[in-house]
C-alpha cells in the first residue's frame, strides 16, 4: 500500500479510520458504534497560542487519536460453571467472609415489587481501540475485557472464553498472538495483538492486487477493512459483507 512519510501516514490513518467508522456504523446494525477519539490536548498547552502551534503541531492535530468501539458484549461460550468463578479471588473471598456478617442483613428483601433475578455475570464486555503504530507503520488492535460488574478479564480468561476457532487461530497463526502493552494514549496496560507480523501478512493479502491510489485515503481505507476482517476473527467480529464488497469493487 502506498504510504508517504510517517506524518502523512498518521493523517491517512485518521482519514481511513473515519471512513471505516462511517461504513461500519452504516452497515453493521447490531453493533456498538465506532468513533474516532482524538487525543485530548495536554493541559499545559494553550490551544490557540502561536507558540503551541509552532512547537507542538502534532498535539493540535486531529490525526492524533484512535478508533474506538466500546462495550461490545460478547457472550462467552463456556459452561455455566466456569462463569461463576470470576472475581472470586482468594483475597476477595477473605475480605468478603469478614464482612459476611449479620451487619448486612437487610429488610429490602420483603419488597414485593423488586424483581429478584439471576445476575447475568456471564456477559463479557470488550473495548477495542485501533491505534496507529508509527514504528511498524500499521494499525494495531488494543483491547481489554471485563465482566459485567467491572472485574477485569485476565488473558487466560479471555483466551478461554473466545470461540474455539479463535483459540485455534491464536495458536496457529504467527501474527495474531496476544501480548500486553501500555495503551499509547491511556498509559495503562492493555492487551494487544502484536503488530510485528501485520505488515507481512497484509502484503500477502494485497499481493495480487494492482497498486491502487498510491498514498490515497481510499486505498488506506481498504487496507483497514481488510486488516480488521482478519484481526476481528479472533473475537468473532465480522466485517459487514457490504464493506468487503465495497473494498472488492474499488
Amino acid at each position, binding site marked *: 500500500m502506498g504510504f508517504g512519510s510517517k506524518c502523512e501516514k498518521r493523517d491517512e490513518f485518521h482519514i481511513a479510520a473515519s471512513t471505516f467508522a462511517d461504513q461500519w456504523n452504516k452497515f*453493521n*446494525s*447490531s*453493533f*456498538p*458504534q465506532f468513533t474516532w477519539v482524538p487525543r485530548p490536548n495536554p493541559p499545559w498547552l494553550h490551544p490557540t497560542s502561536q507558540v503551541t502551534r509552532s512547537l507542538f503541531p502534532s498535539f493540535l492535530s486531529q490525526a492524533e487519536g484512535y478508533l474506538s468501539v466500546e*462495550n461490545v*458484549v460478547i*457472550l462467552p461460550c463456556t459452561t455455566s460453571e466456569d462463569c*461463576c468463578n470470576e*472475581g472470586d*479471588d482468594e*483475597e*476477595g*473471598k477473605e*475480605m*468478603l467472609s*469478614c*464482612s*459476611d*456478617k449479620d*451487619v*448486612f*442483613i*437487610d429488610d*429490602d*428483601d420483603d*419488597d*414485593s*415489587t*423488586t*424483581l*429478584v*433475578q439471576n*445476575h*447475568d*455475570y456471564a*456477559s463479557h*464486555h470488550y473495548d477495542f481501540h485501533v491505534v496507529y503504530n508509527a514504528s511498524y507503520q500499521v494499525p494495531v488492535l488494543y483491547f*481489554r475485557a*471485563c465482566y*459485567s*460488574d*467491572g*472485574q*477485569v478479564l*485476565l*488473558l487466560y480468561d479471555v483466551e478461554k472464553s473466545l470461540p474455539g476457532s479463535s483459540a485455534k487461530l491464536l495458536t496457529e497463526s*504467527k501474527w495474531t*498472538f*496476544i*501480548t*500486553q502493552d501500555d495503551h499509547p494514549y491511556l498509559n*495503562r*496496560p492493555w492487551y494487544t495483538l*502484536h503488530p*510485528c*507480523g501485520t505488515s507481512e501478512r497484509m502484503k500477502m493479502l494485497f499481493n495480487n492486487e494492482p497498486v491502487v491510489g498510491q498514498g490515497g485515503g481510499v486505498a488506506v481505507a481498504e487496507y483497514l477493512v481488510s486488516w480488521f476482517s482478519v484481526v476481528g476473527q479472533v473475537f468473532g467480529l465480522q466485517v459487514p459483507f457490504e464493506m468487503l464488497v465495497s473494498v472488492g469493487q474499488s
Partner: protein
Amino acid sequence: MEDADSEKGQKNLIFAPFQSAVDEGFWHKLSSLKLNKLGIDESPIPITGFYAPCSHHQVPSRLTLLAESLPSEEDQEQSSSVPSATLNQGNRNRCPVPGILYNTNTLEGFQALDKKSLINTEAKKIWDDIHTGKVEESSSLLLRFIVISFAELKKWSFCYWFAFPGLVLDPPARVVSLRPASQCLSSEQAESLSAACNEWRNTSLTTGVSFFLVCIALNSHVTIRHLADLEACKNDGHKVLFGFYDPSNLPSNPGWPLRNYLAYICIRWGLEKVHFLCYRETRGFVDLGLSLIGEALISVSPEWKTRECMPKVVGWEHNKGGAKPNVISLAKAMDPTSLAISAADLNLKLMRWRALPSLNLSILSASRCLLLGAGTLGCQVARMLMAWGVRKITMLDSGKVSMSNPLRQSLYTLDDSLNGGEFKAIAAVRSLKRIFPAVEAEGIVMAIPMPGHPVPIQEEHSVLEDCGRLCDLIECHDVIFLLTDTRESRWLPTLLCSSANKITIAAALGFESFVVMRHGTGPLSVIQDLKAENLNMHNHSETNRTGRQRLGCYFCNDVVAPIDSTANRTLDQQCTVTRPGLAPIASSLAVELLVGILHHPMGIYADADFANSATDSSSENSLGILPHQIRGSLSQFSQMTLVGHASSSCTACSRTVVLEYQKRGLDFVLQAINHPMYLEDLTGLTELKNLAGSFNLDWDVETDDDEDDCVEI
C-alpha cells in the same frame, strides 16, 4: 393506543433493579485520589454515574462508574457541588446521574456504616426534589445513588456496595398493560415516534436527559418534550406517555428508574393512571420491539403524598449471593508486580511464537541457578538469566560492595558501597528484586574454601562448615555458575559439581580475552549413563557411544594444582583488570550456553558441537550449536568454539579425585586445601610433569599460539 384488557388480570408492577458496573479506571482514580489528596478524610464524595438505555436484548445496561466519575485531583474545595455532571453532557451513552460515595478507611468502618440511614437520607433528597419541583429542572435527580466502599489499596482489592434508592408506592402500582411498543402503535405513530426519539437522542442538549414526555397528537404526529412541559401538552389535547431511558432488557419488567418516576408523576401531577414508555434501543436507534409501552394504576392514599411523610425506601443492590457487598480484586490488573510478571512472560512467549517454537519456558523458570561470585560476571549473568525467564537465583559472595564496583558490576549503585559497603550477595539480591519483584532470589554471604589458602587449626571447624554448606547448596540447585575471580576458588565447587553431576558453567576473564565453558558430566555418572545407554540403544552405532569421551572441566587442561594465585602479585594482577566490555560478553555467552544445554535432548550429556558442524545440529536444535567452550579475544574481535576432553589427571573432576572425595569427604577437602601438592600427587600430575615434553593438549580445533592461558586474572 388501546386499553382493551385493562380490567382483569392486573398484577403488581415489578421493577428490574438497577445493576452497577465499575470500570477499572474508577478504582485507579480512587486509589490515586485517596493517596494523593484525600488521605484519611472520610467525607462523602460527590460522584457522577453514567448510564444509557438498554441496547442489547440479552443484557441490561448498567449504571457505570468511570474514572471521570470522581472529582479531579486538582479540584479545590468543590466537594459540595456535583463535580462533573456536565462533563459528559452530550455523550449519548453516558447520561450523567448524581451519586455520592462513602469511602471508609477501614473494613470495620465499612461494616459500621448505617446503610438504612444512608439510603433514607438520599431518598429524602429525591423526595424533596420531587416536591419542590427541582426534578423538572434536572430529571436525573430521580436517579440519585449511593456507593459505599472500602479500598484495600495494598492488596488492590475493593469492597463496595451500590444503593439505588427507590420510593415504595403503597399499595404497589398495578399493571394494566405492558407490551412491546411496536404492538401498541399504529405505523404512522411508530414512524413518527422513531424520528422524534432519534432526534432527541442525537441532540447533544437532550441526549443525556433520561426522563421526557412523548406527546402523540391526534394526527399521529409525535413530539418529545421536557417534563416541565406537561401542562402545555395536556392543554394541547395530546396523549402523553411518560418516557424514560430504560436500562432493563426484560420484556415484562420495566427498569428501576420507573419507580421514582411514578412517585414523581403521582405527586406532582396527581395522576392515577399513567402511560409510560420504556425507551430501549439498538445501535443508537429506538427499538420499538424491545421498548415497552405500559399502563399502570397508582392508588396511594393522600397522606402518602405529603412531603412530611417519607415513604419506605428500598434499593441496596443484590450482588452475587444476595444482599452482600461486592468485592473486586484488581491485583492482577493494577499491581505492578503482577503486571511485570505477565509482561515478562508474554515477552518470552512472543519470542517462542515468533522465532523459537521449541523454547521451553517452564524449564527455564523452574531451573534453580547458583551463582558463585557476585562481581562483574555474577551481576551480568544474573541479569541475563532473568531476561531468559529464570526465576530462581541464588547469589553467593563473601565480599562487600566497594566504591569502584558499581561502574562494572551492574547490580550495584554507589549507595551500596557507602558506610563500608553492603555485602554483595545481599545488595545483588535486593537489586534483582527491584528489577523484577517476582524473582525468587537469595543471597548467601560466604567464602569458598580454596586450595593453597591453608586453614589455621582454630578456623578449621568453620571452614569445614562452609564446605558442607557449599555442598548442600550445590546439591539443591540445578545449575552452578563459576564466576569468581580466582582460579583456586573454583576448585572445590568444580569437585562438588562433578561429584553431584550438576550442570556447571564457568566463565573467566583475562585482560582482553575470555573463556566460557560448560563442564562435562561427572566421572561416575558417565559410567552409569553409558551402561544405561548400552542397554537401551542396541540399534545405535556403538562405536560412537563407546568411543565418546567426557568433556573437560575448568581444571582439565592444567598441569598444576590450584594454589594461591593472589600471593606475590601486584595490584593490577590481583584486581579484575579487564576491558569493561569483556564481562558482559562472557556473561551473556555463559547464559546462552546454559539455555542451549537446557534445550538439548541430551542435556548435560550432550556432545560438543563445533561451528563447522552447525549445518547438522541447527536442524535439530533451533537454538543452534552447543559447543563445549567458547574462547574470545577483544583485541582481535574474534571468538572460537573449542573442545577439551576430560583429563584423567584432572585435580577437580577426574575419577580418582571424585572417588577419593566420596570416600573421605571433608577430610580429603581439608588436606587438599592445606597441601595443594597432595592433589598433584594423587592425580599423577607430579609424574606427568616429570615427563615434560610428552604432554599434549587435547584441542580438537586448530588454534594458533594465542591459545595461552587466558583464564587467570
